[in-house]
């Protein structure tokens, strides 16, 4: 069974890049442009994992993370942000991984693989 990954990212180009690369990994992809959309999608179609940007217009990644923890505590979340500084924030500690954005997606892919094949 293929895993379903929800990508939450406001930058369209980046989202397309992730979508393409992760689809090549064999994942089914769901897309959301901000936190509210992500929660709506997650409520309809339960994802296997979430890749979550933090700085987004509308609901940001930190609020989204809290709400996901409430509605889908069992779904692993990977924070994927350009800012290492958020790692100090306790509210990001409920994420299963914290990845600083890079043009090389190897870490993101490896982390997804690890989290989805843990169970």
């Amino acid at each position: 069974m293929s895993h379903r990954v929800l990508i939450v990212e406001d930058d369209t180009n980046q989202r397309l890049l992730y979508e393409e690369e992760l689809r090549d990994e064999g994942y089914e992809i769901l897309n959301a442009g901000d936190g509210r959309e992500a929660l709506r999608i997650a409520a309809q179609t339960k994802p296997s994992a979430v890749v979550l940007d933090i700085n987004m217009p509308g609901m940001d990644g930190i609020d989204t993370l809290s709400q996901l923890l409430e509605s889908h505590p069992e779904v692993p979340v990977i924070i994927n942000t350009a800012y290492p500084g958020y790692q100090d924030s306790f509210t990001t500690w409920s994420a299963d991984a914290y990845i600083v954005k890079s043009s090389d997606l190897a870490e993101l892919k490896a982390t997804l693989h690890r989290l989805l094949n843990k169970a």
Partner: protein
Amino acid sequence: MDETTFSASNDDTSNDTPQTAPSPVEAYARPSAVHFAPTIGRGQAARGKESALQQTLVMVLAGGQGERLYPLTKDRAKPAVPFGAVYRIIDFALSNCLNSGLRRILVLTQYKSLSLQRHIQETWGLFNPTLGEYVDVIPPQQRNVKRWYQGTADAIFQNIYMLEQERPRWVVILGGDHIYKMDYGKMLQFHIENNADLTVSCTKVPVAEATRLGVAGADETNRITSFVEKPKNPPTIPGDPEHSYASMGLYIFSTDMLVRRVIEDVKQDTEHDFGKNIIPKMVRGGDRVFAYPFVDENQNESGELYWRDIGTISSYYEANMDLVSKSPLFNLYDDEWPIRRRSQPGPPTKTISYEPDRPVVATDSLLSTGSIISGATVERCIVGPRCYIHSWAHVSDSILFDDVEIGRNCRIRRAIIDKHVKIPAGTVIGYDPIEDRKRFTVSEDGIVVISKSMILK
């Protein structure tokens, strides 16, 4: 979004091309240790170089329902239940904080918090905000969840934002419903010396008693090796096979560890309870969890450790009545460990006798401000503020809260009378268990409780 490089910790410009030295203003405004989201700051700068105590936040869990103390908890949270005539139960824990030098305190409330909130506002406003000191009462905010507190650990989880703002290095977690005197600073020192993730304060109890408590099994270094609730065969203290370490529900956590463990726990289907879930799991997982042997600051003749869980009407009654004994186990008269309370204005206690037929007899009792005892007999009683006891009444072995009026010729014994109750002349309470049970709540051992504002004809 165009994410340019920005980071809160990115204040190091030394490797860049030579620049003019930063102005003193800039150096001041951007200290190298700036935390993420230094939101309200709480006068951190005003605290100066911080001691371990100053880097410690206290979280008082005051959200329990106190069902077993009903009806004293009918209109108030358990920590707000009056104790010893002029105190509330929470005053003991807060006095311990103050006497220990801990001045940053959050009281987490949930049920019936109005009385507690008012009490804290009126009594504990003595902290100085300019020095970064405060006692704040926090009801559930539903910041990150849509539920009430599901357990002690969940209460902390729901207040992670507060920890985020404060950034303490250590967190003291305690219940607001125990009577004891303790220097939390000594426990903090113990925690730091052991490089502990978690320290659990434990009192020594006989093995037989430990079967109904949370018990810590420890090695010779006091590191906890097992933690069980209500064990059939309680682990004993090394070198002392007669006693066990019972958890006092009082913990010191290193903050990072606390945050990690409550987040882990909230993702699991547990009772979200420190004693039942978090501590056993930490012990099993190899975290550094230590038992701190309770050091009692209470000075009494017996030398017995004093720590009371006021869980039931009976234990509440006994702990109160200790105070009227000749030499109470719990010492309210010790200048070195004062217990603060709400100071209420009012005239001194007055006694009126009408010789020779109506003398006042008041023996072995605590009498509070504004009370009047008029031609009545009061024996072994705790009489709260502004009570009025009328002629020929005989009141013994009883606890009267504020503003209780006892009519003429009443005979009352072994009763707890809550606030604002007027007992009509000639009423008899505590002499006929069957009659008492028809009208009032009566504990198993026969203590009659008359609830707040009850109207009797």
